[in-house]
């Protein structure tokens, strides 16, 4: 079917505001009489607080409030409620908030910070998750067993394991017995930061008498945060209003509460609006992607058929759970790879350590799991002397197969992705050697589930002039969601795309949406928007029938025009119908609510007939060049072929693929947050923590595979997260191809590459 707006790369509807600098972000919020907050963060990773003396700070002119854990003895956290707003005698990571200050200016607040005297008893931090898992390890959270937690978290009381997720399918032990070959591998991924451009900022305007709180923030799931605040402060949700305008990048790092509880506490303490803005350094401690460790064992038959896979993963989540348990679980869905494997056993441990808080990072652990399993796939291929492409081709999931979670594959563009990416990277012959440089090619596949259960709702207001406004709580964080939603409305109602306006999020006015994460917005919110548009259409038909004076059954709707079967020459525009019906003032309100199907997992086996409403698939291929004298690596080309169901806005999709590939290059080659042996971050800034610059960009060929998701809006599903995952292992496998050396521990710095070359000189001989 041919669409008029959907499937076209219309210009983004936020482009002018963003190019001219008019677009408003949380850091731009200024309220009359606004005060400024600052937080004193712990300089130690592990300590006991003996005494806090705030008297000098309190007496400084211009200081309005000083609060500590004693003033707000509340905890928060929607995955595990384990986190104090301000430390309660115990410090569990460097950067733990200890004291909050409100002052007339940020400078005064900072001066006041320097006047606070804290006596700590420093303790030896637990930094190694494997040590933390030992039975005799001291505990970060002695009360873990009594903490509230959500249904998909499996804490082990009296340990540092805040969740142990299990997936059991078939019988791996029997299958290993019968396998012709068994391969094992160990892999790890490092601590990195999201590096969103906009640091974390929040402004709260709260009143201590009425307990009404309004917060402007950089959050990407304001409703989740509202719930966390409601539970922490014991204030009804309706009294809490979260407003999110544009967000300057999130990549999952702005999901869940960040400084919203703190700014709320500060504002309540003085019943005045307070702004709290973190510095870049502070952001580095507050939210990271935690390190991951992977052990994989795979059994295969002689012909390359995979029959069993066993995986043990350890997720170093830092001092508080954040969404670590969800990461352990969600990565578990995917960890066995997008392959047809009858016997799978996965154990994922999410472990507390005295480190920076780990949270979601573009894929909820899928990037890391993909790193491990796809690297392992190429190692297997090499050992068995099979082409890595053939090994994948033989085992990938097809329509009708049962995946590791027990869900039947309903449609997959995976094979198309695999073929397209591999074909594209092999289009030209490569010179395998030139001077001190060796070249190679590699590939990696990914599959990813989205969030379930979840809810999206949307309201469309059709104004008297026939233009429409969408009220939605999907946050625009650079991904282009507002554009896609407007395209869906324009297509469904036949209105000009330019005349559809999309709101920011305001929990007082825009209806519920679970979160803008998990690559779910185009699918879930897209469906809600589609339903709202259809609701409008339904109402239009009723009033049109009344206005024209015919029976509703005689009317048809064709791209913005209402036609009467008995008067084929005539048609009525939406504007005409609406304005005539109401006179000049009146609004139609369309409502859409979408709750995709899903079935909860069995807690012992992780099995479910529908763990997720849809799966996303992709394959990437890389061509690299390595200087064997210096270890320098150049990514010459990246191909990213992904199945997004259908591309509602192809340019948006390509931007996701290209942006993710570049982010993936940094994640793979040089990004790493380094801690010293006391657990202190040594490179918390963009001078010392390297992300790719424009000069590091490479040739990226993006290929859009459109398999048509049957219940997606216009066939669409998601693409944001899976686009990142295969980049790393594709590069790694290309290095393997070039050097005959497999590197298993991220990041693949030139230094590590050179050391590996020097250790494996003999392997290079054949290259």
């Amino acid at each position, binding site marked *: 079917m041919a669409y008029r707006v959907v499937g076209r790369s219309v210009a983004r509807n936020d482009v002018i505001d963003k190019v001219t600098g008019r677009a408003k972000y949380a850091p731009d919020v200024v309220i009359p009489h606004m005060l400024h907050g600052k937080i004193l963060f712990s300089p130690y990773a592990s300590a006991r607080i003996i005494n806090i003396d705030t008297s000098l700070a309190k007496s400084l002119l211009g200081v309005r409030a000083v609060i500590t854990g004693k003033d707000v003895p509340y905890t928060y956290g929607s995955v595990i409620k384990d986190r104090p707003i301000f430390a309660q005698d115990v410090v569990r990571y460097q950067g733990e908030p200890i004291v909050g200050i409100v002052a007339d200016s940020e400078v005064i607040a900072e001066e006041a910070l320097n006047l606070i005297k804290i006596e700590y008893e420093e303790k030896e931090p637990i930094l190694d998750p494997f040590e933390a898992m030992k039975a005799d390890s001291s505990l970060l959270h002695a009360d873990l067993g009594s903490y509230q937690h959500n249904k998909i978290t499996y804490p082990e009381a009296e340990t540092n394991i805040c969740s142990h997720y299990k997936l059991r399918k078939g019988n791996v032990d029997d299958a290993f017995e019968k396998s012709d070959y068994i391969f094992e591998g160990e892999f790890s991924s490092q601590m990195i930061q999201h590096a969103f451009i906009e640091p974390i900022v929040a402004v709260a305007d709260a009143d201590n008498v009425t307990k009404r709180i309004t917060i402007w923030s950089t959050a990407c799931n304001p409703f989740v945060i509202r719930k966390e605040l409601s539970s922490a402060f014991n204030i009804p949700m309706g009294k809490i209003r979260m407003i999110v305008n544009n967000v300057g990048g999130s990549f999952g790092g702005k999901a869940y509460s960040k400084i919203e509880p703190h700014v709320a506490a500060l504002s309540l303490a003085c019943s005045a609006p307070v702004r709290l803005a973190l510095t870049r350094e502070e952001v580095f401690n507050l939210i990271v992607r935690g390190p991951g460790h992977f052990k994989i064992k795979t059994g295969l038959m002689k012909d390359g058929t995979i029959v069993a896979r066993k995986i043990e993963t350890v997720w170093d989540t830092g001092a508080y759970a954040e969404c670590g348990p969800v990461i352990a679980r969600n990565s578990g869905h995917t960890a066995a790879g997008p392959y047809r494997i009858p016997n799978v056993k996965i154990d994922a441990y999410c472990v507390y350590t005295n480190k920076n808080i780990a949270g979601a990072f573009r894929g909820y652990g899928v990037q890391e799991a993909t790193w491990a399993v796809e690297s392992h796939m190429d190692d297997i291929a090499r050992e068995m002397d099979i082409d890595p492409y053939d090994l994948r081709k033989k085992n990938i999931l097809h329509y009708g197969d049962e995946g590791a979670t027990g869900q039947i594959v309903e449609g997959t563009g995976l094979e198309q992705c695999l073929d397209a990416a591999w074909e594209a990277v092999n289009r030209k012959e490569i010179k395998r050697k030139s001077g001190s440089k060796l070249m190679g090619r590699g590939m990696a596949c990914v599959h990813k589930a989205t969030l379930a259960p979840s809810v999206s709702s949307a309201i469309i207001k059709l104004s008297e002039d026939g233009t429409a406004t969408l009220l939605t709580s999907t946050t625009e964080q650079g991904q282009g969601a507002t554009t896609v939603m407007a395209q869906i409305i324009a297509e469904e109602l036949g209105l000009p795309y330019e005349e559809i306006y999309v709101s920011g999020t305001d929990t007082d006015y825009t209806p519920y949406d679970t979160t803008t994460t998990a690559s779910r917005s185009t699918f879930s919110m897209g469906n809600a928007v589609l339903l709202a548009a259809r609701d409008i259409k339904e109402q239009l038909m009723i009033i049109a029938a009344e206005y024209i004076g015919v029976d509703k059954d005689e009317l048809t709707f064709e791209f913005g025009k209402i036609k009467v079967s008995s008067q084929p020459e005539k048609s009525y525009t939406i504007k005409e119908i609406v304005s005539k019906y109401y006179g000049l003032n009146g609004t139609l309100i369309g409502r859409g609510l979408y709750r995709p199907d899903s079935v909860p997992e069995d807690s012992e086996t992780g099995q479910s007939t529908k763990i997720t409403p849809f799966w996303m698939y992709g394959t990437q291929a890389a061509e690299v060049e390595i200087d064997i004298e*210096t270890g320098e690596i150049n990514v010459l080309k990246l191909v990213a072929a992904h199945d997004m169901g259908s591309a509602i806005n192809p340019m948006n999709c390509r931007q996701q693929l290209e942006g993710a590939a570049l982010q993936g290059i940094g994640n793979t080659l040089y990004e790493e947050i380094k801690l010293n042996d006391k657990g202190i971050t040594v490179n918390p800034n963009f001078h010392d923590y390297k992300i790719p610059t424009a*000069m590091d960009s490479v040739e990226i060929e993006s290929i859009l595979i459109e398999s048509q998701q049957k219940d997606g809006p216009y066939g669409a599903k998601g693409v944001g997260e899976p686009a990142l995952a295969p980049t790393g292992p594709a590069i790694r496998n290309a290095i393997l191809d070039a050097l005959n050396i497999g590197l298993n521990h991220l990041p693949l710095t030139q230094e590590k590459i050179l050391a590996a070359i020097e250790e494996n000189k003999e392997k290079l001989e054949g290259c």
Partner: protein
Amino acid sequence: MLKTFEYLQPKTLEEALSMMKSCKGSFRLIAGGTDVIVQIRSGKTPPDYLISLKALNKELGILEEKEEGLDIGALVTHRILEKSPTIQKEYAALYDGVSQVGSVQVRNVGTIGGNVCSSLPSADSAAPLLILGAKLNIVGDREESICIEEFFTGPGENILKNNQILKSIFIPKLPKNSNSAYEKLGRRKAMEIPVVGAASYIQVDKKTGICLDARIALASSAPTPIRCYKAEQTLVGQSAEKEIFVKAGKLAAQEANPRTSFRATEEYRRSVIPVLVERSLSRSLNRIKK
């Protein structure tokens, strides 16, 4: 957040010098500020005063070609140097160095004087200036000219006294059949200080191909930017070709004294120094041939 400080802006070099003398409290000079501001923000060295050299362009900002060589005012930015055809053609190592400082934005602001006076072991102009025989023109109670080799005394340290300003840098004209190059190894392609930098200068006898003169200097390889005299000596009198360049590289690595930081380990730096030195020498030679 930045600590507060008093900002002074003298209009002449003389005024600047007298301000430095009469200043009560700690002060620092600021040129482009790309090092100073970063350092103040990280809380390391909050001075009471910043004395800006910005208005002294007439005295410190001139790039002048003379009969005997090139005079570079301390305030000349990396970008101006990078764009100068003379530097591109005749002082290629310096071009290689300054054109790879940070990004265009940083090069538009950062000055060569600031780069030298920050005296970091990683300064990208330092190794090129060392092999180009640069002289530093320093003013204070009196004006003096010293060889750049005498300038650096430790990481971030130099011989400048509290009442002295670097006025300009002089680079003598290179003799015939000579050329220079600077190789920089970083982790990414821009906004990167060198993991190791290697500069070289050689002069050859066009007929015999014998190396008549050679200088080698390294960045990020010791507590200060250094010359590698032993490596240089092996080259002189030898036929300029890869074999001897490799040997010089190995000697240079022995003369180096790199450290382990979170950017790179000592071992890694040691293993790439010979490669970069050899590549730098080969590039210098190729430039002569062209």
